[in-house]
């Protein structure tokens, strides 16, 4: 399974450790909130809203260098907009991977 990395965050931060930590803190704060909103909307069958949530989570997935995960998220967002959920399991596995990664970050 593809694992998150900090390549993009490092390239953006350069030697600015304070910025890097601040960015990580914001991701650690925003990601669980966005994830929860996604689950709430999906479980309530609000697929259009869930698609919007996936769209936002997509950015976090790409920031953490998950290139394949990003492709899954793109496909899942489109599926949700059509009321389908073909990539649900794959997408939620990515969320789990990120959740674990952020705990140790």
């Amino acid at each position, binding site marked *: 399974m593809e694992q998150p990395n900090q390549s*993009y965050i490092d*390239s*953006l*931060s350069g030697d*600015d450790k304070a*910025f890097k930590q*601040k*960015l990580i803190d*914001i*991701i650690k*704060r*925003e990601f669980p909130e966005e994830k929860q909103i996604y689950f709430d909307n999906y479980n309530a069958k609000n697929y259009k809203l869930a698609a*919007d949530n996936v*769209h*936002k989570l*997509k*950015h*976090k997935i*790409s*920031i953490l260098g998950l290139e394949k995960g990003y492709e899954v998220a793109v496909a899942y967002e489109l599926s949700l907009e059509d009321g389908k959920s073909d990539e649900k399991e794959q997408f939620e596995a990515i969320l789990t991977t990120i959740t674990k990664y952020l705990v140790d970050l």
Partner: protein
Amino acid sequence: MNCIVIDDEATARMIISQLCSNVPSLNVLEDFPNAMQAIKYLNQNEVDLIFLDIHMPDFTGFDFIETLKNPPKIVLTTSDPNFAIQAFEYDCIVDYLVKPVTQERFQKAIDKAEAIQDAPVKTVSESEKVETSSGNDLYVNIDRRLIKIDIPSIYLVEAKGDYIQVKTEDKNYTVHSTLKKIEEKLPDSLFLKVHRSYIINIKKIIDIEDNSVLIKKDVIPVSRSNRPELMKRLNLL
């Protein structure tokens, strides 16, 4: 260039601000989590450049652009490359950045923005949104679609903050515009502003009592200053 950042995602705002901080010619004045806050800010402040997220809840980046009469240069930031074609419809948009944005790609966007002379830019202004009316039709911009409304079917227009609600025989429409703009587009022979928040179709009045009129099921206040004009327009026995 003085700039602002509009994005509903805090992470994205922070990244764009960081990218800006590495470019000496850029000065980030503010960042906003939604377009409405930015509109209020722009009513009182001038900026040279806006970094604008497209995909925001309630009010998209494109909705935001259409509220600006003289938009500054805009760089779109998005996770969705599919909006690129729509971006070309706006002369004010100088570049289109797909997230996550790298410093190199960001710099290219800034170079483009700086290369553009201060030529006046053109976009669909707020007034033009309702100026597209012809004859008995009024076209309003809702969710990036131009919806045709049959003017005589309108019985009431109500101001609601930054929006107006247009009520017709069949349907109600919420449009990002002002009462003043739509008043200019509605024929005087049919419509009258009876209160700072209401324009009514005088043909649809059911009755008038003291300082209010009944239209359909809506009781609409009539301000003291507008009452004489209303009475003048009625065919009083």
